[in-house]
C-alpha cells in the first residue's frame, strides 16, 4: 500500500534542537511543498531558507515567523506556526505546526516544524481558515504516524 503522507526535511537532520520539514501529500489542502519547489533559485526561496535557518538556530523574529499563544483564538492554535514573507506586493505564508517527534531522552525537547499549507493574501491578518485546516491535519493519526516513524529511534 502506498503511504498517503510523507515528510521531507528541508533543514539539516543533524541539528540537535530544531528542524523544518514539509508534509507531502496529493491532498489539495497540503500545498506547502509544491509551492516551495516552484520557488527554486528565486529570492523568495532564499528568504524562506534563511528564515528556516534562523528559526532552527533559535533566533527570535516575529516579523519572519511565529506561533500563536493561549490568548489568541482562545488557544486553539498553540501548535500552529507560520513563516512569512512578501512577494509581488502580496503577503505569502507557509503554515504548519510544531511537534516533538523524538521520544527518548535527551532529545525529547527536539522541535520539528512541519509545513503544510501555503497562503497568499493582500491583508496582514491571519486567515483563521488556514489555521483551522492545519490544526485538523495535525491531529490526524496518519500524519502523526509518518512523523514519529521518520524520527523513530533505533532500539
Amino acid at each position, binding site marked *: 500500500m502506498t503511504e498517503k503522507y510523507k515528510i521531507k526535511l528541508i533543514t*539539516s*537532520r*543533524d*541539528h540537535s534542537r530544531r528542524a523544518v520539514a514539509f508534509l507531502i501529500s496529493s491532498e489539495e489542502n497540503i500545498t506547502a511543498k509544491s509551492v516551495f519547489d516552484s520557488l527554486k533559485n528565486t*529570492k523568495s526561496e*532564499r*528568504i524562506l*531558507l*534563511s528564515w528556516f*535557518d*534562523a528559526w532552527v*538556530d*533559535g*533566533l*527570535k*523574529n516575529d*516579523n519572519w515567523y511565529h506561533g500563536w499563544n493561549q490568548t489568541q483564538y482562545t488557544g486553539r492554535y498553540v501548535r500552529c506556526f507560520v513563516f512569512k514573507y*512578501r512577494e509581488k506586493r502580496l503577503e505569502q505564508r507557509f503554515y504548519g505546526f510544531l511537534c516533538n517527534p523524538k521520544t527518548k531522552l535527551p532529545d525529547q525537547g527536539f522541535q520539528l516544524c512541519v509545513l503544510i499549507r501555503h497562503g497568499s493574501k493582500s491583508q496582514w491578518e491571519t486567515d483563521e481558515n488556514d489555521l483551522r485546516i492545519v490544526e485538523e491535519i495535525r491531529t490526524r493519526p496518519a500524519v502523526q504516524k509518518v512523523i514519529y516513524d521518520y524520527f523513530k529511534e533505533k532500539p
Partner: protein
Amino acid sequence: MSIKSIKKHWTERSIKDYLFRIVVDFTAQLESKMESLPISRDELSKRLHVSKGRVSQVLNHGGNITLDTIVQYARALGMKVSIVAYDDNDPDNKKGPINSEIFKMSWEHLGKPRDFWAMQDIVTTKNISAANVTFGRRIEDFKIFGPKQSSSGNVAAWSAFFAIESFAGNNKPFEDDKRLPS
C-alpha cells in the same frame, strides 16, 4: 560514508546563495537597531541621502548589496562593521554560516573588548578556559608577534560574514537577552 551522502547546506549551492544568507543576517541586525532607536525607513533614507525605495530594497534583500552599502547603512545607524572569517570545523558547509548575531552577542558577553590587550586581559583575569580554546591560536599569535601582526593568517577560513559592532547598549548576561529563544 560516501561523498554523495554528505548533505550540504543550501548556501553551498552558489556564492550568490551564500551572500544572500549573510546579507539577510546583516539586514536583520539593521532592522533590530532601527527598532531599538527607533528610526523609520524614511528617516534612514534622509540620513543616507537615498530614496525610501532604495532603503526598502536593501532591507528587503533586493538586488546586489556591496560592501560600500553595508558600511554606509551601518554607519548611518551609529554602528560599525567587521568582516570576520572563521573556521567552525565544517569545511563541507553541511551546517551553513553561523548567524552574525551570535558573534555580536559573544563579543558583547565578553565585555566588548576593543583590542587584543583587552582580549588578553579577559583571558588572563577571568581565566576563561573556553576562550583559550576559541581564541587560543589568536592569543598565541598575539604573544609571539604582538598585536600588529597577530590577526592575519590565523583563521583557516573559506567563508566570511559581516558582523556589526554596536557600541550602544549594555553588556547584558545571556539569560536576560530577549534575542534568545525561550
